[in-house]
């Protein structure tokens, strides 16, 4: 076993002396991930990142109870798992290709018609969310958004800030220059007074569970 493999194995031993979720275990496992990464099998296939993500999860959950040092190094153990996940990924692609044919229907004469399903374009039907926010802020039915303002600056209220900051369009610097109020004061007010009202609006309108 190489020096690097021994170092990795020592770190794993250290990590496993501490319970899951403990700081020391987290630190050791993070270091092992760094050291093992360059030793992992690489393949330029689209499902590689998914297979690797599963491998890291497997590593962290099983290194302390599923890895047998007598059977080989940590990278060897992980590569075996990674390659099995890559095989799963490959199999899924093959299966998808084989079943992805246009559905066939038969008309009254027994002739096959190729039916290509189209997803109706619904984009035009529903008003975009940002427009709903804009309409609500402009209407301000209870007057609340206009009432809440920075002390001494009734013109800097939640209605104005929500509309100006919609789509992150107006920069904080531009607002600070225009009103002569420091950015920390503006953003602090926006976060404490305006953002909760935005969240509230979202909840009452059913956009957020």
């Amino acid at each position, binding site marked *: 076993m190489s020096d690097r493999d021994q170092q990795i194995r020592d770190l794993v031993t250290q990590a496993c002396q501490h319970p899951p979720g403990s700081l020391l275990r987290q630190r050791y496992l993070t270091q092992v991930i760094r050291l093992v990464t360059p030793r992992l099998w690489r393949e330029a296939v689209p499902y590689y990142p998914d297979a690797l993500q599963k491998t890291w*999860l497997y590593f962290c959950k099983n290194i302390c109870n599923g890895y047998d040092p007598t059977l080989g190094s940590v990278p060897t153990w992980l590569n075996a798992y990674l390659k099995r996940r890559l095989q799963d990924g490959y199999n899924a692609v093959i299966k998808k290709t084989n079943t992805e044919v246009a559905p066939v229907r038969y008309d009254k004469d027994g002739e096959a018609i190729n039916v290509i399903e189209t997803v109706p374009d619904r984009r035009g039907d529903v008003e975009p969310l940002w427009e709903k926010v804009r309409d609500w802020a402009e209407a301000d039915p209870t007057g609340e958004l206009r009432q809440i303002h920075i002390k001494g600056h009734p013109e800097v209220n939640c209605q104005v800030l929500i509309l100006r900051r919609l789509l992150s369009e107006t920069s904080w610097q531009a607002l600070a220059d225009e009103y002569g109020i420091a950015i920390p004061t503006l953003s602090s007010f926006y976060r404490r007074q305006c953002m909760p009202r935005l969240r509230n609006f*979202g909840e009452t309108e059913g956009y957020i569970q």
Partner: protein
Amino acid sequence: MTYGIHDSGLSLPLSLSDRQTAQTFAAQQPTPAKAEQVRLNTLAVLTMQHYLDLMDIPSDLAASDSWNPIMQVCTDVADLELPTKGRLECRPVQPGAQVMPVPPETWEDRVGYVAVQIDEAAAEATILGFVPLVSDRETIPLSELAPPEALLDHLAQPLPQAIAHLSTWLQGAINTGWQTLEELFNPPQLAPAYAFRLRHPGNTVRQGRRIVLGHNQPDLALIVEIRPQPEQVEIILQLHPLEDRAQLPHGLNLAIIDDATATPILTATATGTEDFLELQLDGTFGEQFSVQIHYNDLRLTQTFLI
């Protein structure tokens, strides 16, 4: 030179479902600029969620503003809610970037900030580093970030909650991150005795918490003393250096902020000769106020609910 920070970075894969989620959120945005912002923010948040999952640290995407369609459209936030810890801001950076951008709407109410380098071509994200505070700056040089392990260290500490509930103190509770003066000033000779003689012993409750200034300055102790009255609560705030015989640095400012208007109602500034700063106010149950400590570009806020 960002060679150092990339050495200690941690690279993790961006799965197909990660990229699809990011694309779905981006597709709901009306402008290309917003779509790009939301897509990258989402990838950074997902990367941190996966990493924290590997580390057995629970996270709650559904409770995060970054997962909220209204907040996505109205603000530039990439937060990840960590139950019992707070919100972690996960800022995306491009390969080759020298700074981490930090929008002002994320300057408060964050347990810390991570820079996550997104390399979409390689379907890979790298956690570059962590910083617990940004001090009212819109960009943080990557060279100021500590390695990702610093995030683990920070989360492992008992962190004070964003809002301290003073009424629970009257029932004898000690909130996480707060301590009795005996514990805070340890060894006891650090405690300036004259300042701590209780003015009204009996129904006064007092707790303190450590404030780290950095900048080679001694740590501070924020002491809060509350005394309930029939109609209101008397509150005394004091700011002391935690080092023996130290003075508060010149320019250190202590302020009480009215949360309803985000403006200061009382403030005191150290001239370099004071042993401590003190502010008093009377409040009623249910009221909320914040205490801000300002030193150079560092701004710390502690919110109280009476």
